[in-house]
C-alpha cells in the first residue's frame, strides 16, 4: 500500500518536472518546483527518513523558492 503511494507521488514528481521543463512562464516553473519539493518531502517521510524530511521542507521548499523568486524579480519573467 505504502509503496503504491510512493510510486504515485514519484509519478506526479515526473509530471511536474516535465511541466517545469516545457513551460515558458518562469514564475509558474518556480511555483511548480515548490510543489515538487513538497512531494519529495512526503516521499522522504514515507520511506522512514524523518531527518531528511525536516531539512527538505525547510531548505528545498521554503528557502529555495524565496531565492528563485527574488532572482526572478531582477530578470525577465517569460522565456523567449
Amino acid at each position: 500500500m505504502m509503496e503504491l503511494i510512493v510510486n504515485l507521488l514519484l509519478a506526479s514528481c515526473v509530471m511536474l518536472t516535465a511541466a517545469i521543463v516545457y513551460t515558458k512562464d518562469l514564475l509558474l516553473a518556480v511555483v511548480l518546483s515548490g510543489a515538487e519539493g513538497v512531494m519529495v518531502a512526503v516521499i522522504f517521510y514515507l520511506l522512514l527518513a524523518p531527518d531528511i524530511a525536516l531539512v527538505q521542507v525547510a531548505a528545498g521548499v521554503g528557502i529555495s523558492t524565496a531565492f528563485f523568486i527574488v532572482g526572478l524579480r531582477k530578470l525577465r519573467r517569460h522565456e523567449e
Partner: protein
Amino acid sequence: MSLKDSIIGISFVALMTAILIYAFLGYPEVGFVRPLGEFYLYNTFNFNEQGWWSASPNAVTGVLWDYRGYDTLYETMVFYVGIVAIALFFEKESSLRRTSGMTVIVRATTKLVFVFILTSAMAITIFSVKTPGGGFQGGSIMAIAYIAIIIALSRGFLPELRMDLSKAHLIKIFGLILIFSLTVIPVAYSLASGTVAYALQNQPKPWSEFGYPTFLGLYSLSGGMVIPIQVGELVHVGMGFTIMFLILTEREGKKELGGKRS
C-alpha cells in the same frame, strides 16, 4: 521541439533506466543492511561496546559528527565558500532602509511567528540526539524565520532585531570557530602530551586515551560533544542563508557593471 531533440531525450531516458535497473533490484528486504551501515547501527548506542559508540540514539546524528566528522567538516567548508562567492559578485552597500512592507495583519502575525520559529529551530537542534533533527535542519528553519521577516517587514526591520549584515557575518564566524576549536582540542592534547588522539573524537577509541567525556546519566542530553558542534552548525547555516538572501535582495547599485541594463 525538433525531431532530433526528442530522439536524444528518449534515448537518455532509455539509457538511464537501463543502467538503474541493472544496478538496483527493487527494495531490499528487512535485515539486508550493507556492512558499513550495520556497523553504524550496531555501535551507535551500544553500552557493551563503549569503545566504538557515539552515545546518540539517533544514528544519523552519530554518523554526521562522529563516524564521518571529516566529511561534514568539508561540507561546512563548501557552504562557506558558496557564501564568499555570492558576496564577491555584488558590491556591498547594505542599505537597510525601512519601507512599509506588507499589510498590517501580515506584519503583526510575522512578528509573532518569528519567535516561535526560532524556538523550534533551537529545540530541533538541541534535542537532535534523541529525536530527528540536527544543525542543518535547525539552521534552515532559523533562516526561514529571518527570510519571512525580510519579506513581510522589509530589510529595514532587521536593525530592530539587533541584526545586520556584518553582525550576521560575525555570528556565522563564531559558529565556525566553535566547530573548529572543538575539532582541534584533541589534536592539541595529543601533541602536548605525546599520546594518541584524533581530531573530532567524540569518544575515546580503543587505541587512544583522550576523548570528549560522556556522563552516563547525561548521555541522552550531550551525546559526547555532538550538541555544541550542532549548535555551531545551526548558527553557521542559518546565518549563511540569511546573508545570501540579504545580498540577493540588495538594490542594484548606481555603478554600472558594464553593458546595457533594461
